[in-house]
């Protein structure tokens, strides 16, 4: 069974934010909703590194565990999705997530949080595939088209890898072996087997 994963190669990421805008533009997200973001450490100092972070689609996802309504679920290929028709916007998932992935657009009465929005691995959502509803609520469903997620596809330096864990682990290991350094940050947290 294939297992979808993200891996950001810290040695390659140049913090160009290409992934962030690719995601926002591709799914037409409202301003303020960051399904993906880039974090820089040691900015301006030797040892400056950056990493692009989104939902890691954890194997034992804490968000699924804490969701009080069971709105979050995991597909067979490991992609974690949220059903916005069921989500009540309570925010527990955000507090349980190690990566800060869940996002909450405002806009309900009294400015309360709306349904949770997060990276879908470009796999749409539970609405009928390619339906207008799916596009509106979850964005594109590229996985159903056999296409790769936008963020990784548009990564300027090929730092962000996405796809079948076996394949991307191979690629990454090859790189690490070549250059002698590299860490797959987040993997040990997200993918416990």
């Amino acid at each position, binding site marked *: 069974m294939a297992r979808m994963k993200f891996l950001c190669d810290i040695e390659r990421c140049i913090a160009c934010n290409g992934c962030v805008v690719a995601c926002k533009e591709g799914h037409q997200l409202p301003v303020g909703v960051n399904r993906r973001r880039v974090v820089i450490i040691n900015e*301006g100092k030797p040892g400056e590194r950056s990493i692009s972070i989104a939902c890691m689609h954890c194997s034992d996802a804490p968000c699924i565990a804490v969701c009080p309504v069971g709105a979050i679920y995991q597909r067979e290929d490991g992609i974690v999705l949220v059903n916005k028709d069921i989500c009540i916007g309570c925010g527990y998932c955000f507090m349980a997530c190690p990566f800060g992935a869940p996002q909450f657009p405002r806009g309900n009465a009294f400015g309360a949080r709306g349904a949770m929005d997060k990276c879908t691995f470009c796999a749409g959502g539970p609405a009928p595939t390619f339906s207008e509803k799916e596009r509106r609520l979850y964005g594109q469903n590229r996985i159903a088209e056999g296409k790769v997620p936008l963020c990784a596809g548009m990564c300027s330096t090929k730092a962000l890898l996405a796809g079948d864990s076996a394949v991307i682990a191979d690629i990454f290991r090859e790189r690490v072996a070549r250059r002698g350094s590299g860490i797959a940050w987040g993997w040990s947290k997200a993918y416990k087997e």
Partner: protein
Amino acid sequence: MTNSMNDIRHSRCIFMIGSNAAEAHPVSLQHILYAKEVNGAPLIVVDPRFTKLAAKATEYVRIRPGTDTAFLMGLINYIIENDWHDKEFIRTRVAGFEEMRKVAAHYTPEVVEEITGVPKDQLARVAKLLATHRPGTVIWCMGITQHHIGSSNTRACCILQLVLGNMGVSGGGTNIFRGHDNVQGATDVCVLSHSLPAYYGLKEGSWKHWCKVWGVDFEWIKGRFHSKEYVHKKGFTLARWYEGVIQEDKITQYTPIRAVVFWGCASNSQSQYHKLKKALDKLDLVVIIDPFPTTTAAMCEKDNVYLLPSTSQYETEGSVTSSSRQAQWRYKVVDPLYESKTDYEIMEEFVKRFGFADKFYKNIKKVPEDVTREIARGALTIGLCGWLPERIKKHTDNWHTFDVDTLQAKGGPCDGEYYGLPWPCWTETHPGTPILYDISKPVTKGGLPFRARFGTEYTYPDGRKESLLAAPGVANPGSEVMGGYPEFPGWKTDINVIREALKRGMAPFGNGRARCYCWNFPDPVPVHREPLHSPRPDLIKKYPTYPDKPDHYRVYTRFASEQKPELVKEFPLILITGRMVEHMGGGAETRSNKYLAELAPEMYAEVNVKVANDHGIREGDYMWIESPEGGRIKVKAKITDRVDERTIFLPFHFGGYFMGKSFAGNYPEELVPYALGEPANIVTNYGYDIITQIQGTKEGLCRIKKA
């Protein structure tokens, strides 16, 4: 660029000076990091600021702004001193080496450390890296050019590569990453005040050549000008046109400028913007043709301005030339939106009303394809002859058939050709020249020697005579003459001469030597000259600037009279500008993109923590930055170690504020960009390159105070 982006994959050493490619050209990093990882190529970044690119470097050299020539000459000297230079390459293909060597000898590691602040050990280490990792590429951007000695800086880079023998080889070369998407194309067709398309210059022969291409009478063109003198006189430049209006420096033109047309050009990218603003207030007519309202529109307060909506590039088509000299066809994606018109349509309307449409469009029936053909007929000097619209489209349509490493098509309709037909592409069947001055390939297959542009022999001031043609035995395979040869007479104006040369396996422009000694430049060999506004007054005497230039693109340009040692007392901090990855140029498009504006919503100044503490400024505080010319801007402080204790950095993309005042109300309703800010160029200083008049925005002075 002499090589291509992809060719950097073959480099064994990458030397980047005055470039922040990680923010300005992020996708190029794909190839740079590949070379770094796979070839084990050291990535040396020389920059006054610890940029995002420097974060990826294996060796970061912090240099004082405006001292690049000293550093490069120091490297050259160290390499020669240690006998690391490529003697065979220099013997066969380089001229003026001895003269250059004498000048370079001055730049010992100690002297370089004194001027640039780079420790001499580091200089030695960098020189050794360059010498032991060949071929290496040298990459630069505006950090090298935007100085009053910008042209010396660029030449020093070239000489470094000549000394290392890195020219004309895969993985080597001098690679200048250009800024705008089609700045190479626009430069090739010379939207420039000193030349006709394809670098023909403004001489009579050049005019006659182009008149022939256009199918008009030279006498008629001459009649269109004010007088014969003005046909050949270089015009005002983008950097200083406003002096033609406000005349704070004396102009040498019979009339001041009364009208200006901004056709896809931002104004907030020009230094001393507060003076440009004065010009906008004085002009009779300002025409702005752009898909976005631009900062210029908001800055015009008089009823003298028109805004014409042109389409974006995706609603029209035409070829674009990438930094690697490749042509790609930018296809039209959708029809023009709203009431906007394509630039071609607007041009046609203008020309019709100016009354010369019949002459202007004589050879042009179908736009843009016939224009491409006209360029191909005229631009022989840089070999655009093979750039026919069908071929360019064919390459774009089949871009998937080109190999990532060599950029050569393997099979398919473009078999054997190089992607985008990098110029010179001499004929309709030429595959393009992927690497300039590469003598390992036949000329017909994309090889080239150095151009023999300056005759066959030169006598240096000390009486030494040297041939300017390549040494015997050095030529492209298949060349009829195995050795140096002069240019073919008439090749610049007659395609048949080019064909003839190619038939004989020879380059139309001859087989010459690369010059280290350019006698037609103010400094035949690059030497360090202190910035006009120098933070080191003690060095001004030893390294003074040039004398003033009275008629420099029609305006008096001060050099020596502007260089005042006492200035630094009042303005103690060095001011440099640069890019952010989220924005582009003047920012009209990107600041109107809600996602990009969300990522980079505000203007800021990078300040070192020491400077900030000395001035009582904390992160996020507003502060005033003031220039010696009287410009001042109010910006937020971003406290960071990216800049050192003497430097302030400003991103130059913002507009919509002016000296502390918001001009948001001056934009057309509802078209105010999402992100507004003070233009950095209000405080960039006086100072222009001696040859090109590029503005010296990377070597100014300023002072700051808490707002």
